[in-house]
């Protein structure tokens, strides 16, 4: 169900990324002030944008979950947030490398985007621990959705707040995506598209893998129901068959 179309998506992603890299290194002109270092812009900013959108999308999917109570929305919300966290980590690391190259420090407080990112990252880093510390699966998904919506609303507010706090002290250091000359804008858009495709592909990949694992577990439970002897599995945070049955019967 989730694996359908994954192959064409991956091929599209590979093509887009190859095109983006080619454009970045062979087509986009060298920037006047920052020189070659500015090329990091084409990977750092798309990662950041996609991660942020992913967090907000995670919140939107969580709204769907609370409205319909269909677990598949919670499932998708979880994967979107999880993937965005990884992309956010990538954005933080590349941003830090860029700061090191530009300023000589591995971290600068004067770049509001990076700072907002750190705060958002710290918030979403609690998502998984929060989930897995709530035993009851129905409550876990419900609380996770509330968190995802709150945090998703927080993302834009946080950006505005941090931008306000530093705007009149330090002008933007690492550049903005507006006012780009033609070739740079094209390169940026292609990179953005490639990273977005990468995000979607990896999410689909993750969804398919988790779904498969859930189906294997269901199969295992069904066989257990048939009286088949099953070896003890290792440590798992997955809810047992009894809790699922209990949760379901209350629906």
């Amino acid at each position, binding site marked *: 169900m989730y694996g359908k179309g994954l192959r064409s998506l991956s091929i599209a992603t590979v093509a887009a990324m190859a095109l983006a890299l080619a454009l970045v290194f062979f087509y986009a002109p060298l920037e006047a002030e920052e020189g070659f270092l500015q090329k990091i812009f084409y990977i750092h900013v798309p990662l950041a944008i996609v991660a942020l959108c992913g967090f907000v999308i995670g919140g939107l999917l969580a709204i769907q979950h609370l409205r319909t109570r269909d677990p598949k929305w919670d499932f998708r919300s979880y994967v979107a947030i999880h993937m965005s966290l990884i992309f956010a980590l990538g954005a933080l690391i590349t941003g830090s490398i860029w700061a090191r190259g530009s300023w000589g420090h591995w971290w600068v407080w004067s770049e509001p985007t990076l700072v907002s990112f750190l705060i958002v990252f710290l918030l979403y880093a609690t998502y998984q621990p*929060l989930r897995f510390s709530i035993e009851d699966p129905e409550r876990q998904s419900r609380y996770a959705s509330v968190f995802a919506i*709150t945090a998703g609303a927080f993302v834009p507010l946080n950006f505005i707040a941090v931008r306000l706090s530093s705007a009149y002290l330090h002008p933007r250091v690492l550049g903005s995506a507006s006012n780009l000359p033609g070739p740079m804008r094209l390169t940026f858009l292609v990179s953005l598209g490639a990273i977005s495709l990468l995000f979607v592909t990896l999410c689909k990949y993750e969804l398919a893998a988790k779904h498969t694992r859930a189906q294997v577990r269901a199969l295992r439970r069904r066989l257990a129901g048939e009286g088949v002897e099953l070896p003890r599995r290792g440590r798992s945070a997955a809810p047992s068959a009894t809790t699922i049955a209990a949760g379901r019967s209350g629906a």
Partner: protein
Amino acid sequence: MSARVGVSATVGLRRTVAALLRKELLVELRTLQSVPGMSLFAVTTFVVFHFALNRNTVDGDLAAGILWVTLLFAAVLGVNRVFVADAEQGGFDGFLLAPVDRSAMLIAKVLTLLAYLVVLELVAVPAFALLLLGASLGPGLAELIATLALGDVGIAVIGTLVGALAVHTSARDLFGPLLALPLLVPIVIGGSRASSPLLSVTHSAGAQGRWLLTLGLYDLVFGLIAFALFDFLLED
């Protein structure tokens, strides 16, 4: 899953909130488990700051920062306790059975936290002025109170939401602060930026309107979000 009680509650919202608020404040008055601890924590923290910074007085940005950080951490102590009694002693179940609008619990808890924060500040701000503040509070006092009030509303709203989220986890003392602190960063930004000119020796400028506006908007947005989402946390 229990169904939501809709708008047609049989007991009015205001009466329910009043009743809940009375209960919360009575319990706190009798057990004194939150506010004295929070206040003592704040004062002790000021002492710690004196030693950590090796300074006798602070003013301006530094003063604003110390004040807000201390208030924040003291508030987080209160947040951890907001729902603990309900979770442990079945207060949720009793409330869910009553024919009342569930938002009443949110409003009552927010008002309770707000009350705690006000009492906390009545102790902490004079202590701060006494122990650490180089400047005098006088000229900027009214604006400082306004800033603190706006900040308190935000802390109360987010604290209630986070408290409800954290209470059912297995490590609630940990998740309260972990969830609350990032969400409270904009309040710290707005609060400390607004307070900084009020706490400087040279009272050059008043609190900038934009920070108070930021605080107010943030409070409003999260108030609405908490109002919309709280019911989902209460379900059985």
